[in-house]
Structures are given as C-alpha cells and as structure tokens.
C-alpha cells in the first residue's frame, strides 16, 4: 500500500505538472486576449506528432534529440501564430463566444490532418531517459515521469521569471492589465496577443513531447488532457500562474489518488473535485476574487 501511494504521488505530480504546463497557455491567452484555445489538446498532439517525425529523421541522421524537441516546439509555435491570425483575431471583437467554436473548428481540422499524415494508430514515442524502473524503498518509479516533472516545473519557473523580469514578459502583463494604456506607452497589443498564442502553443507542444513517451502518440491523445488542463487552470485560478501550477499538481494527485481506490472513478474524481471547488471558491484556489464596484 505504501509503495502504491508513493508511486501514485510521483505519477500524479508528473501528470499534474504537464496539465499545469498546458494550462499556463490558457492563462497567457486569457489575460491578454480574453480568449482561450479550446484546441490546446490538438496542439499538444501536433507537438508529439512533429516530435515523432523529427526524432525519427534526426535519429537516423545521428543528430541531437534535444534539437528535435526544439524543432517540434517551434512547429507548434508556428501553428499557434497561424491559429491566432486565422481563427482568433477575426472573431475576438465579437461580444459572444465565437472564439470557443473557431478554436474548436481548427482543432477538428488538425485532428483530421494528423490522421491523414501519421495514421490513426497509437505510436510508441522514444523515451528520453532510461525506461528501467528506479526502485526506492520498494516503490517503482519510472524515470520518464521524473523527467517529465522536472522539465515541466523548470519550464514553468523560467516562465514565471520571464513574466516578472523580462522586458517582453512585463509588456505582456501590461497588456493583460490594460491594453489601451499599454499601447499608450508604446507596446503593441496586437503583437503581444499573437505572442501569447505563440507561447501558449509552444507550451502545449512541449507538453506533447513530454507526455507522449508515457501515453503514446495518437490523434486523439489531446482530447482528455486538454479538459484536465482546463480543469487545472480554473481550479488554480485562471489569472494566477502560480495558482495554476498548484491546481495542476492537485488535479494530478486527485486523479492518481482516485485511481488507487478504483480505476472506475479516475476521471470522475477530477470533475467532481472541480465542481465542488468552484461551488465553494468561484474563482479557483488562487484566482483574483471579482469584486464588482458599484
């Protein structure tokens, strides 16, 4: 039992860190454009698919797998820029909810493209680290999971630093706070919004190549992950990146904890958890409470 819990915690944190990683993308586009990429899961999938190809080609050519990863993320970033230009910018001014559907429309197309290009089968993804289990006091831990956890958390820490310290990061937060005011001091909000989508898609792409060795790569792989990432973002608080990290890890732990009890309630646990959490705290764990000034 103890080993099981120990293993569950590591798996939970690893999965949860990927949810959080993808959810940071939700944060970025939400605060800057008040829209979300509901097709984030397909961007994750495309990241994994590109990764598969690049690892294949480059592996044959004897090139560095690290380079393959960078190329896959770059491809996801390009897709994100295209998405913003084609499906978000034209509808973002509409008061209604059009961006949900336009991003979903793009994701449907991407899924089709993926099946056409890579086929519908589940494909094994090369592991970055040894596939041999590490045994710590009886508990078997997959090195891939540890790798996943470390890279995700490190990326997010770098991301937090970027938002706090880098000129561009500060410009993004300025647009998030008040786009017209930001444009008065010389920041181009349009450019920042495109950047938000680029970064958000890049994070999804990274999430894809991180999680693919654990879950395999296939056209449908993003469908459920994106919903869980969305749950993580809102459980943590959509406008608080630190809250999102926390939210992701908690969602991962809840999921694994439920799996230990019964695999039947695995997916159920997340949604019930989020429903209860949001009923009690309507802006998530660390989200800014909306106080309407009268």
């Amino acid at each position: 039992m103890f080993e099981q819990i120990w293993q569950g915690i590591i798996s939970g944190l690893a999965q949860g860190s990927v949810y959080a990683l993808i959810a940071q993308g939700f944060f970025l586009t939400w605060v800057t454009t008040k829209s979300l990429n509901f097709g984030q899961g397909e961007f994750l999938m495309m990241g994994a698919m590109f990764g598969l190809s690049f690892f294949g080609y480059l592996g044959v050519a004897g090139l560095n797998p690290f380079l393959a990863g960078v190329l896959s993320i770059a491809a996801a970033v390009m897709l994100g820029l295209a998405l913003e230009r084609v499906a978000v910018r034209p509808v973002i001014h509409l008061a209604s909810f059009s961006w949900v559907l336009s991003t979903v429309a793009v994701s449907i197309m991407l899924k089709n493209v993926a099946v056409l290009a890579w086929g519908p089968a589940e494909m094994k993804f090369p592991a970055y680290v040894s596939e041999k289990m590490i045994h710590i006091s009886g508990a078997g831990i997959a090195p891939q999971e540890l790798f996943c956890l470390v890279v995700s958390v490190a990326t997010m820490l770098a991301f937090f630093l970027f938002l706090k310290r880098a000129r561009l990061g500060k410009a993004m937060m300025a647009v998030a706070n008040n786009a017209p005011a930001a444009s008065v001091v010389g920041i181009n909000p349009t450019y920042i919004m495109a950047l938000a989508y680029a970064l958000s898609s890049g994070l999804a792409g990274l999430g894809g190549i991180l999680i693919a060795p654990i879950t395999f790569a296939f056209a449908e792989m993003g469908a459920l992950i994106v919903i869980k990432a969305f749950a993580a973002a809102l459980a943590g608080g959509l406008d608080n990146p630190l809250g999102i990290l926390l939210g992701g890890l908690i969602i991962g732990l809840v999921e694994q904890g439920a799996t230990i009890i019964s695999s039947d309630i695995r997916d159920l646990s997340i949604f019930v958890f989020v429903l209860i959490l949001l009923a009690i705290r309507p802006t998530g764990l660390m989200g800014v409470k909306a106080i309407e000034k009268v």
Partner: protein
Amino acid sequence: MKKSERRFSLPIFADYTPFRFIGLAAAAVLIYLLPKIFADPFFILILQTIGFTYMAVLGLDFLVGFTGQKSLGHHGFFAIGGYTTVLLTTKLGWDFWWAFPIAIVFSAIAGLIMAVTAFRAKGPYIVMVTIAFGFVIEVTAHRWVALTHGPMGIFGIAKPYWFGSRLNATGYFYLIAYAALALTMITLNVLSSRVGRTLVAVRESEVAAGSLGINVYAWKTMAFVVSGIFAGIGGVFFAHQSSFINSESFPFSQSIMFLAAAILGGSGTVFGPLVGTVLLVLLPHIFAGLYKYYLFICGLILLLGIIFFNKGIVGSLANLKGFGWLNPKKPRLDMPAEKLTFDISVPNDRPLLEVTNLSRYFGGIKAVDGVDYELYPGCIYGLIGPNGSGKSTLVNVLSGVYQPTAGHVEFKGEIISGTKSHEMAVKGIARTFQTIRLFRHMTVLENIMVGFHIHMRRGFLGHMLRTKATVKEEERFMRLALALLTRLGMTDKADTLVENLPYGHQRLVEIGRALGTFPALLFLDEPAAGMNSYEIRDLREIILDLKAAGIPAIVVIEHRMDLVMNLCESITVLDFGQKIGQGTPSEVQRDTKVCTAYLGQAEA
C-alpha cells in the same frame, strides 16, 4: 460600443397577430408534408435527428442567447433524459408515457444542480462547471455498468405507443416535430415577454436587476432548469430513435455541436437554432463520401461560418436588405397612456428612514463610519461630500448592495439592515447608479418595463400559454411605461436602444426605471454627472415634479452644488465616512467644518 452590436432581445411584447397563427399553421403543414415528399426511410431518420437535436439547441439558446450563460455540458442533459426513459421502459417495463414526465423531472433536477454549482462562477469558470457537469454524467454512464451496461449498451428499446399502436418511423417523426414546434412556441411566448426581458436584464447587469427587485439567482436557476428540460426531452427522443444506446451515445462532442448550432445559426434569433441545427446535422451526410477528409471539411465550414457570419447566419441575414422580417417586431406604441400617479403610503408620524451608528468597512478602510441619518417623508434631501467621503457606499448599504459592518437601519418602522438588494426594492427603496447601469441592448421602453418587475404578477406558466390575464397585464404596464416616459419627456425615444442615447438621456431612463418600482424612498446617485447646465435645469424640474407626483422622499447625491443648493431642502455632508454637517442649504454653506472639508484649512 459600436452600433452594429447585436440585439438579442425579442420584441417587448408580440401579441397574437394573424401572422403568428399563419406561421404556426404553415409550420404544422410543412411538418406534415415533409415525410410525404421525401419518403425515403433514411431521410426520415435524418428528419428525426434534426428534430431532437433542435430541442437541445433551442434549450441551449435559451441560456446562451438570453441569459448570456454558456454551457458545454448539455450532452449531460441529453444523457439524463435518454437514460431515464430507456431504463424505466426496458428494465422496469414502464410505458413510455409514464417514463417521459420522470425524464423531465430528472432533467430539471440536473438543471438545478448545474445552476447551483454555477451560481457564483463567471465567464470561463461557468464553462468549466458545465463541462465538468457533462463529464460527470458521461463518465458515470460509462462506469456504472450495473445500471447502464456501460459501453455494452442497452438493447430492445421500443418506440412509444400512440393511441394503442406503436409508432412507426414517420409517426415518430411527427411526434418529435410537433413536440419541437410546441417547444418553439413556448420559447417565443416566454422570451418575448416579461420573462425574456428579465433574463436579458440579468445578463446585462446583475446589480441593476437586483436593485429593481429581481432575484438574480432565482432567475438564472430558472433559465438553467428550462434549458435542461428542453435538452432532456431531446435526449429522450434521441434514445428511442434506434433500439440501442450505450454510454458512448452521449459524447462531449455533442455539447460542442449544440453550441456550434446555436451560435452558427444566430443566437437569440427566432430561426437561428433551427438553421444551425439543420446545417450541422446535414453536414456529415453531405460530405459522407469524402470520408477521409470529412472532419477537416466540417471544421473548415464551421470556422468560415463563424468568421463571415459574425452574428450567426440568421442574425447576419437580418441586416441585409429584404430580410428585415427576420428582425424582431417593434411594439405598438400608439396605445393611450395610463394616468400615472405615485400613490405611495408611508407613515407620517415617524421618520421614513432611521439610520443608527451605521458602519461599513472594506478591510482597514472605514468607508462609512458610525453615521446617524434620518429622513422624513415629503422632502428632497441632498447628500454631499468630497470624493471618497462615503456617499456612494452609504447608498449601497442602504439599498442592500453592500451589507453593513455595524449599526442598524429602520425603514417604515421595520429593521431592514442586512436585507438583500432585490428585497429592498420590494420594501420600497429604489436607486440609480453613479456609473450608468442600464440594460444596454434593450430599448428605453423595455428598460422601463423591467422596472415594473415587482408589480407584475404573471409568471412563466402564464406567459408560456399567453393567457388572457397575462396579455392584459403586459398591456397595462406598457401603458404605464408610456405614461412614465411622458413624465420624463422621452416618449419619442421609447423604441431607441439605450446605448444609442446621449448621456443625459441615459440618466433619465435610469431614473424612470427606478420609478417603476414605485419607491417610497428614491436615491439618485450623481444624476447630473455628465449633464450640461440646460440638462441640469431640466433635471431639477423633473425631480421637483416627482415630488409633486407623490414620491415621498428623494435623496440626491451630487457634486454639482448649483443643483443641490437650488433643489434640496435638507443637506447632509459626509467626510471620511462620518457625518460632519446637516442643515438647510444656507446653513451648510456657512458651516466651517464643511468648508474645511471641501477647501482645506488656511495654515496658521
């Protein structure tokens, strides 16, 4: 805001014109003819699918188009409706028509649960709540194998009986289509009346709706419940279409399709949900031959549709020449106005409002700090003080928007501190807002009509069936609204969208809307802000006229001293949350404390 902004609201009150009956009859005949013209069994299946999908889309549009709430969890209602009748008929051997009402009840309960969990959530958080809700039901259906047989599914689902014989495919289509027609009529009746106005009001500003006595939570809950019932009924007809369902019959993609149909068709329009549904049901069949690329094509069409028809297909067409009939009908305004008198009785022997030691803190900030305040009927009061002195906070506490930290308030001899905003309106306290909170996408007349909310008695059922009493009530209040507008000198603006009005007029509409509650005490929070000196002169006349018309007490919170000093009989001065002076205009002007608060003190 741009003028092209979509107008969701249906006409304020569309009466039963012959055209409506003709439309209804035409739809009924068309439904009857469809299976005769296209007798192909496959086509009849598609017609059935359009019918039950349309019900869910209609229900979703009730939510999206009118209350502004969004849902990506409606496949949950679809599943609840479907599983309820299927399980009751196959496992317990119930008759379909006994199981059907149970399905409605269960869908309503599910809608209630969704509403309660989504109560305080906003924007994307609501979306998450609805997604989670849908998934909980989907996953439960999948995993609770003992009940639903999960992916293995349930076989032998029969079509319902109709007068002793089992329905065939065509009969089943008729059942679905006429039920859908009935639901459409219900929706139109309900939404083009008080119910629709109230829902749109809640969407536009919850705070303003509350100040008029609308119980925001109750109305939102109602919208979720109705929406859930519609989708649940759709689910029932879906489940009995073929003889088999399993847990994969209700995927998340259904919810996305419902939302896509609602928005692509034209959310908040009469024909939008139908157009969207037909399109989305037919698309897969049109491109079925291109099996490999079909998802790509559907995605592309959806994307292009959303970009090019940015108000939905019907909403965008309505702007074109020759399609004007798609727009909501304008109300008739030529009816004789009712005589308007404010016959509001208040006790004369005691203060109307008695505030004792009232405080409201925000963290460490003492916005209102131990204020005593008395108001008597028959007087216009002024409430002044420098910026940040606590005037608005005081009004917010007295109108129930904020709850007091300490102290108590008596109104008409009854302790009312701690009462919620919408109950304050019923008790007789009305207000306007410092920053205008009109229902922007409604006309002037519609805004005023919402103001009558607490005096209108006919509810959902009455409007659903358009009973005679309901029609009478609507007409009576419409005449009253016109009379109120006459009093404000705005009769010619009755059919203008308020967002297109100049600032000064918007302020007047807000006053008119508050008057609709027939208040014993009316707070006007900076009514002159943004007005020029001519408009202020008119405003003064209007406020004096209101007193003459019988509004017992009016409190004007204002920075424009020319207005305050020439209008108010008694003035109270606040500074740093405390009362520093009270008296007639000339007394207040001579008060050294007041002068210091405004101008500072000369250095010694």
